[in-house]
């Protein structure tokens, strides 16, 4: 597979009254053609800013991309002028946001909004664009598309609006779609529908997809590769199967262990990551995660660990990554530590929650 997007040492900072917010601070990764990449981390860690940087949609002031390259089809799109960038945004890259209402125009019918892009970027006639709008809506699973294309955004439910957003994102035949928490505001059953839809459309159209989420569970099913972000940096990256089963950064381990899992016996106590994410204005020296880290040693306070290769195609920014891996994830070992309460009836190990 060819590389579609290559991000090199991207840095985006905000110059605020309180100080410089290093929202994205030295992020590098690539996206292959047709690949789905998961970008995961807690709120405020820089996921949206890193996505908006790719699209060059950072509000300036206060924001600025201060360093780095974004090679899209081998061209550094941070260097091209804004007109060329707008063309790329309309034709090759598009974005799906968490709250579709903010990116849909409330006073225009869907037909107007969709056909505009189609006429502008795909040179269609009005009638062609109208027909294509209807097609797109039915492709994303909106029933009765012929009629609904003439409606306004507020006449659609949350899940339906997200489908409309996906139709909009697809309308320009893009190479890359960036979906920023596309299902966070939706219910689980609708979430599942939307993710399945994105998965099938991206493979059908051969589109690459970056899915941003704060929930590791959401992308497990769909991502080929994962980037885990913390405090403006990628702290672990690798193939999805590998990162989930062989996590080599304490933060990833912490994320995986803090959620209760339906497929495993119930644990008597959850195992949260203590504390809170740091303030991106006054990041101390060393590893940004160290205050919350169970593995932290003296070195972590003075030397910031770079992303280091820990396995084939798998990087971690931790001095002690060698000591992590599947054993750090041993959920069943935890169970031995905490005997489940008796009100739970049978022993916890019996409470197989395998959903059939």
């Amino acid at each position, binding site marked *: 597979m060819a590389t579609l997007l290559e991000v090199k040492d991207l840095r985006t900072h905000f110059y605020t009254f309180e100080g410089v917010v290093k929202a994205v601070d030295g992020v590098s990764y690539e996206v292959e053609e047709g690949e789905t990449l998961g970008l995961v981390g807690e709120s405020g860690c820089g996921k949206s800013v890193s996505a908006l940087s790719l699209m060059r949609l950072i509000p300036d002031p206060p924001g600025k991309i201060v360093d780095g390259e974004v090679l899209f089809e081998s061209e550094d799109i941070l260097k091209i002028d804004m007109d060329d960038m707008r063309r790329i945004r309309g034709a090759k890259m598009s974005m799906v946001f968490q709250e579709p209402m903010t990116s849909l125009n409330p006073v225009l019918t869907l037909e107007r909004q969709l056909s505009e892009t189609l006429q502008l970027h795909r040179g269609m006639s009005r009638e062609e664009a109208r027909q294509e709008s209807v097609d797109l809506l039915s492709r994303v699973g909106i029933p009765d598309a012929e009629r609904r294309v003439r409606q306004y955004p507020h006449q659609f439910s949350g899940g339906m609006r997200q489908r409309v957003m996906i139709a909009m994102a697809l309308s320009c035949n893009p190479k890359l779609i960036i979906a920023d928490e596309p299902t966070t505001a939706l*219910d689980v059953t609708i979430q*599942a529908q939307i993710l399945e839809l994105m998965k099938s459309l991206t493979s059908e159209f051969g589109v690459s997809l970056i899915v941003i989420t*704060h929930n590791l*569970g959401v992308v497990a099913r769909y991502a080929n590769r994962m980037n885990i972000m913390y405090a403006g940096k990628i702290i672990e990256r690798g193939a999805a*199967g590998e990162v989930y089963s062989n996590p080599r950064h304490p933060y990833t381990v912490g994320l995986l262990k803090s959620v209760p899992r339906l497929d495993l016996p*119930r644990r008597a106590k959850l195992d949260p990551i203590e504390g809170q994410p740091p303030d991106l204005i006054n990041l101390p020296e060393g590893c940004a995660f160290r205050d919350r880290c169970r593995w932290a040693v003296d070195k972590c306070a003075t030397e910031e660990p770079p992303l280091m290769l820990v396995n084939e195609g798998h990087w971690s920014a931790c001095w002690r990554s060698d000591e992590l891996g599947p054993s750090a994830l041993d959920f069943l070992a935890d169970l031995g530590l905490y005997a489940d309460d008796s009100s739970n009836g049978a022993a916890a190990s019996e409470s197989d929650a395998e959903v*059939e």
Partner: protein
Amino acid sequence: MTTMTETGTQGRAPAESGEILLEVKNLKMHFPVTAGIIFQRAVAHIKAVDGVSFFVRRGETLGLVGESGCGKTTTGRCILQLYRPTDGQVIFDGQELTGLSTRQMRTMRRRMQVIFQDPYSSLNPRMTAGNIIGEPLIVHGLVNSKDEYKDRVAELLQNVGLNPYMADRFPHEFSGGQRQRIGVARALSVDPSFIVCDEPVSALDVSIQAQIVNLLEDLQERFDLTYLFIAHDLSVVRHISNRVAVMYLGHIVEIADRNEIYRSPLHPYTRALLSAVPIPDPIIDAQRERILLSGEVPSPLNPPSGCVFHPRCPIAIDSCSEVTPELREVDSNHWAACIQAPGYGSY
């Protein structure tokens, strides 16, 4: 359309399983939709809660799950009499609440509290954390002096894992997780026995969610609390609850012990809901069966006839659009409202 009858409600719990603190019987909340400028008249009704029955035992956590708009919050508010229900009974510790005056209810509310979902909008931005937590102490006359007030606020802050010196800060100076702790401390201030936790962790990051869940569990043990835990995240609900009730479009479709409902869900909606929960392990997740429901939840303004789930139900048969299935105990302590559930019997 027939409504859920009281036969087969959860009113008759086996005595040996623990004392019942709260009992809800055939609860209905229909919000009028009005028209007219001068003379408002009801032109239709939103059947937000439409005949819901369940009980909560003292000291247990009953989880209430379902998709947004199914009536979870409304059920919680009806229990606390923040909404006056259209019909049905709410019996708290032997006392029927629906007939109580506002004044009588105020006294009851000392024993029944609520924690809200949104730690951003539920705290008054112009009050300090200390005053947010301490206000109920004054409203209910629970302290006699300034010193006592301060001590109690400090103690409450500590109980929820915050520092007493934070009492002078304003909500915006706290993170989401900390704000939720303030909400918990406020609920605890009056020493309640029952708390409706309305999606208390839904707005938080996963790592912070676990902190709050653990806190709620610790507090339950320390202060003998009984919870109605409302959520849409089934993994969290299974973790924190002793029993789980599943709601759909104003109705409860299934109630069972937390292990039972996940191991052998009987209602097709429960099964679909469970199958949609993502598992953070791609290998295991790929092996799970997925039941993708078609379409969306219908409007409570005009709910479907018969079983409200039938238009989306993968196993619906003709009679599902005709009969409204009541919630029946189909197995010991396992209740389901589906005419096709094993053990449901005939109509």
